[in-house]
């Protein structure tokens, strides 16, 4: 029913999604921190091909928005002032991947600022902020998962390979971590770390916290694989030829765990992205003015924003395709591994 290379398609989709976020500087028309105090909470601008007189234009355009007369927060389109959309324009400076200085953007409007997804309280472009915010959230998820898998593999391999008291001790502690409600543990750990820190510190703090909380599940899985792998004939043969522990682990045993680790990665990354979002949403994560998907949603905690500015919800929807693709990848990998079991993420999300 399902083709063997199913996971490859998911991987391509994943690469595309991550690519868009990685090239945020190019796809986003503006700098995420650039403010426009004249236009707070501007609703998303409509992109037209047909003008007010009913004429068709090949080049998409928008109308400039101005305050409706007699109102302080209601904007309306000014049909006299069209803003033609231009592609591959030179605009705000940015650094691609943090070092390559560029000024080229996919689209923009030199005449006027254009807000595809509206603006926030300071008139910052929501679209640009979502793209840049993805960089923080996804990087936190990826690095957190990397850290977790590193510790998980290390601990699981130690417990499984050496056995004895090491195994007993490590697995008891792992049980403790697995037993706790995940989010509560995350909170507890975050609670005892400094609150007021710079964005960069906060970022690394969060990755550490996330990485420290999640190691138990992969550790237990890796231990299981190592336990069965070390009794395999070829491993025994290698040991008989005088292979050292380190060589055996590196060369023969750990490669056996690769499919478990890959599947775990596909499960953990979205979970950790969500963890970062949750922490930042609650003000325990990466602080302003740096955007992350979580802190972008934080403004929804104000009732007035909730009522009148629905576009502030857009960052929440940005995560859904990522979740979809990661989940698809995870279940495809699991099917490939031949377990055929339904994906199990209890205790997470």
């Amino acid at each position, binding site marked *: 029913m399902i083709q063997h290379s199913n996971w490859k398609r998911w991987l391509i989709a994943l690469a595309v999604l991550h690519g868009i976020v990685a090239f945020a500087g190019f796809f986003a028309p503006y700098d995420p921190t650039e403010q426009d105090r004249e236009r707070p909470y501007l609703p998303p601008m409509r992109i037209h091909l047909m003008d007010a007189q009913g004429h068709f234009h090949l080049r998409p355009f928008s109308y400039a928005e101005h305050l409706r007369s007699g109102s302080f927060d209601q904007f309306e389109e000014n049909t006299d002032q069209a803003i033609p959309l231009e592609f591959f324009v030179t605009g705000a400076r940015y650094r691609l991947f943090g070092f390559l200085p560029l000024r080229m953007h996919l689209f923009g409007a030199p005449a006027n600022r254009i807000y595809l997804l509206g603006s926030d309280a300071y008139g910052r472009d929501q679209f640009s902020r979502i793209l840049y915010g993805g960089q923080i959230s996804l990087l936190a998820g990826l690095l957190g998962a990397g850290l977790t898998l590193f510790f998980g593999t290390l601990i699981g391999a130690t417990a499984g390979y050496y056995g004895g008291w090491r195994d007993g001790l490590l697995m008891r502690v792992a049980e403790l971590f697995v037993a706790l409600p995940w989010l509560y543990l995350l*909170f*507890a750990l975050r609670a005892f770390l*400094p609150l007021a820190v710079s964005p960069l510190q906060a970022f690394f703090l969060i990755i550490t916290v996330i990485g420290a909380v999640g190691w138990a599940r992969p550790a237990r899985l890796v231990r299981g694989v190592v336990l069965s792998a070390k009794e395999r004939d070829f491993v025994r043969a290698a040991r008989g030829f005088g292979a050292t522990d380190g060589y055996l682990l590196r060369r023969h045993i750990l490669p056996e765990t690769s499919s478990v680790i890959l599947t775990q990665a596909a499960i953990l990354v979205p979970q950790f992205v969500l963890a970062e*979002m949750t922490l930042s*949403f609650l003000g325990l994560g990466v602080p302003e003015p740096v955007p992350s998907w979580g802190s972008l949603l934080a403004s929804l905690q104000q009732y007035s924003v*909730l009522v009148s500015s629905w576009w502030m*919800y857009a960052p929440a929807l940005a995560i859904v395709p990522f*979740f979809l693709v990661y989940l698809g990848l995870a279940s495809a990998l699991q099917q490939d591994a031949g377990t055929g079991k339904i994906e199990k993420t*209890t*205790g997470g999300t």
Partner: protein
Amino acid sequence: MRYFLHRFLQATFLLVGVSLLTFLFSALAPGNYFDEMRLNPQISPETVAALRAQYQLDRPMPVRYVRWVNSLLHGEMGYSFAYNSPVAPLLWVRARNTLLLTVIATLMAWALALPLGIWSATTLGRLPDRALSGVTAALLVIPDLVLALGLLILAVRTGWFPTGGMVSVGYEDLAPLQKLRDIALHMALPMIALVLSALPLLVRHIRAAIAEVLSTPFLRAAASHGIQRRTLLYRYALRAAANPLISLFGLSMGGLLSGSLIIEVVMSWPGLGPLLLEAILARDLYVVIGGVLCSTIFLVVGNLVADVLLYLADPRIRTEVTAR
């Protein structure tokens, strides 16, 4: 009996372990509630030191732990700096609200998931199963936070449900039945969010378990004997598939608790979630420890309930235990 004693001892060890772990974290923590006081020029360093001494924060960690256990045994669970009161009564009020929400949500989620999962398993590969799989997949990729915020926006814009809090203004003057109605209305939104977030995983597991059982020879034989479909499904198949599902009940508690934490904060339901968040922001040490411990107790109790159910449902476990 020994089976339960064993389980009970395990649970106790777990709770001790969790309390030690959180204490260890707190000991490693830089800064505490009184550090911010120290920055205030109106409060002398001596006062801060005196306060620290009063709350025993200047003592080493083992001493504090022993004193905390002592206060736990006296039903206090330490002292909240911010509320200036013992932690236990603070926690109790909030824990009750969280329990109210999660217990009802758990029951509702299972009540919905069982028929849906069974329906899906009996129509494997056909339209209802495909449609349900699609819906559960869609719900699975929508995280709690996104779901809760979306529902909140929906509620605010349509005015279908009251948002925020647990009761309306003027609650005290309502008649008992109206009070119940008021709470139920306020509970609706967090409840929907919680049930929707728990549902997909449950439906999928139930579907898998039932489908596996339905393909076994003894059920085919039963079906060919002409046993009624409903009896077949709910008496034979469900009974046979009960084991993994009961374990799932215990496991799903953790997810529900974590889910309710964030949903409570988003919907401002006065449960443990908002209390814990406030405590974290105020560095109210013992409230944080108490909150984490409280959630662990819920989880442990949930798992114990699952164990008891498993014991009742599966004769194999009973004989295994008595044989030991």
